[in-house]
């Protein structure tokens, strides 16, 4: 994808984006959203795969998460999952940001 198309799609998503996420938390600003998606793909990706189809950790694609609640996913992001390698991200990711990320995962990320 070239830079112009990225800019265009960022602008479109800015225009369309609701100020409050589906799950009810405040939506992070665009540059923070970009950081969070980068973190998701690169760093969550080291266990869940850069395309989120799973690795040592489970897949995070919408099909795999069907039926899960955003609040529960956000709680796993913030506090980790006991007895698994999933670490807590609280401190690096706020509660609103975790809810926003959970919403993105349930909806599916665009490329």
């Amino acid at each position, binding site marked *: 994808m070239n830079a112009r198309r990225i800019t265009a799609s960022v602008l479109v998503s800015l225009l369309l984006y609701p100020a409050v996420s589906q799950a009810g938390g405040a939506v992070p600003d665009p540059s923070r959203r970009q950081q969070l998606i980068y973190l998701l793909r690169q*760093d969550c990706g*080291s266990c869940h*795969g*850069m*395309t989120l189809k799973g*690795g*040592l950790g489970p897949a995070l694609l919408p099909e795999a998460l069907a039926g899960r609640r955003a609040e529960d996913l956000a709680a796993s992001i913030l506090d980790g999952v006991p007895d698994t*390698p999933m*670490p807590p991200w609280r401190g690096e990711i706020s509660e609103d940001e975790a809810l926003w990320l959970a919403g993105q995962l349930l909806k599916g990320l665009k490329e």
Partner: protein
Amino acid sequence: MIAVFRKTLQLLAMMFLGIATARADGLRGTGDLGVVIERAGGSVLIVETTGQTVLGRVTGLGDLSHASVVFSRDERYAYVFGRDGGLSKIDLLTRRLVGRIIQSGNAIGGAISDDGRLVAVSNYTPGGVRIFDAKTLAPVADIAAIYGPAGQRSKVVGLVDAPGGRFVFSLYDGGEIWMVDCRLCIDGGKPVLTRIGRAGKLPYDGLITGDGRFYIAGLFGEDGLAMVDLWQDPPVIRRIMDGYGKGEAKLPVYKMPHLEGWALADGRFFFPAIGRHEVLVADAGNFREIGRIKMHGQPVFAMARPDGRQIWVNFAHPLNDTVQVIDVPSLKIVKTFTPGPAVLHMEFTPRGEQVWISVRDKDRIDIYDTRTLKRVKSLPVRKPSGIFFTARAHRIGL
């Protein structure tokens, strides 16, 4: 338009580099070549370490978000294992993709047999090991990692080659270590599987020592490592470094350590602790802990310079902008660098006078002189991760 222009420039640059490094008779060896994974673009760069240049790029390798490479024994071909189950064979001389299959849905790594005839891949989905003819990539064996009374399928990690045409690997979910002897596979014989036994909870990676004798699996779910002496017949599993966490709460691990390339130096093993910002030191004779070195963060790779004099260590997110160097005789950290965000991998040149370091978020490879500890050069690379030099072809377990 701009893209076309850029492509043309790149082509010209590659042609120029090609000309600059080729000999008049058009022949060259491959002992100073290597492969660098560009994880975001599904491509690899072919590099050479004598003049430290990029020779070319090979594309179309699929999802390389986690990828590793082994080399044919003639050091001409590289086998690239991709996250999406892709197994690609690259000719380093012509810089062409000469074979490619999708052998599973989700893979983690691979190994090449001691005789160079078999390539094995460890898979997450479906969990198991698949083995292929190194020449043709035709399938020769398929081992399903099925464990427990309910017959569940386990992800497979820590796959290595072992002497005698064997491969050893660990079952992440199943907590076991298995070995397969595939010497006769290529001529139509069946693989001979040995379930060596119970390793412990959640083995996350494994390695074989350079002499091919000890296989060691790191355990995420327990404080300790599982070790197999392959010289014993039948081989048995022994626990080593038991309780190195001594019941202390673990720190969160934002990236799993890699055990491959772990360090044996001066009669001591150096390896990343898990959930602790330490490198552990064990006596290589009896595997007893003899020390710990406090580090900057959770170590990911702890790699010995080929002569064993230094250990270079990188770290997990969010402290992954740093590299530290341990001086082996004194067990002291002698240098801390900050090459930039997301240092993902390090590879020494065959005799260790230089080390290449991938700095993902700077789109750069930094090359250091390991004696002066100074950076000598940087190469632009798109989102680099793993760096693999052909000298691995002649080392057991790499």
